[in-house]
């Protein structure tokens, strides 16, 4: 199988991503402290989504995995989003 194919991610890649994640966290904290009304939720969740995409792609090595695994992860994320979306549709427009 793919046992032989070893991909080594350099240390500095992780450090760059870590720095970016911390900056995004602080941005999210700062922006939500200013009252932006309904945008607060959108901004906080958007930043969380960006942060998780970096964790999934770099830290969890998905960027370098097979297409099958990428599609599987994507499918699960889509299912969760769909469930939340459909449930909220029900509550908002009942």
């Amino acid at each position: 199988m793919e046992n032989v194919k070893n991909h080594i991610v350099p240390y500095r890649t992780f450090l760059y991503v870590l720095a970016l994640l911390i900056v995004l966290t602080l941005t999210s904290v700062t922006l939500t402290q200013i009252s932006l009304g309904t945008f607060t939720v959108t901004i906080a969740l958007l930043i969380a989504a960006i942060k998780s995409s970096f964790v999934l792609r770099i830290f969890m090595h998905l960027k370098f995995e097979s297409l099958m695994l990428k599609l599987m992860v994507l499918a699960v994320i889509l299912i969760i989003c769909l469930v939340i979306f459909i449930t909220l549709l029900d509550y908002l427009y009942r």
Partner: protein
Amino acid sequence: MTTETHRDDLASKTGMWLFLFTEMLLFGGLFVVYSVYRYRNAEAFHLAAEELSVFVGTINTIILLISSATIAMSITAIQKHNKKLTLLLLGITVLLGLAFLVNKYFEWGEHIREHIYPGSPILASRGQGDVLFYGLYFFMTGLHALHIIIGLVFICVIGRLIIRDKIVHDNFVLLENSGLYWHLVDLIWIFLFPLFYLIT
């Protein structure tokens, strides 16, 4: 040909991911519950969320992010035959995980001292919205903390295997799997943090 036992790293990793999917769906379900209750009790959730310390939450977020980076780097270290650095990075990850739990302990302790905990009569007197918010807060952060404890045990077991040279530069899928678990714990916190601490 040596009599090496059969090994399939791809299958091992895929299996770990399948398990992580069930974890994602578990927390996904809780996020649905949170969204609905928040929608129905917007005012109470708003006021209750303001009582949580954004500062402690931010510190804990950064602690988990750093620990995720150190365990990710440990995989690079083992691939580069650097056993000492691998163990050092895992050690830092475990210490950061413990620091997270200590912060959580003081945070929960503070709430419990103020008689805010599930089933508390004082919390019940504050109304349904507060009961739901703190119920979800204690359950979701508690379940997350339980995952941290499991992750720490997992990483310690992996550390032991590295010391005994059972996990080496060309056979480290177990280390990768423990890393995946730890990153998932981080991933869940990335969403828990804004939902409970930031969106007020």
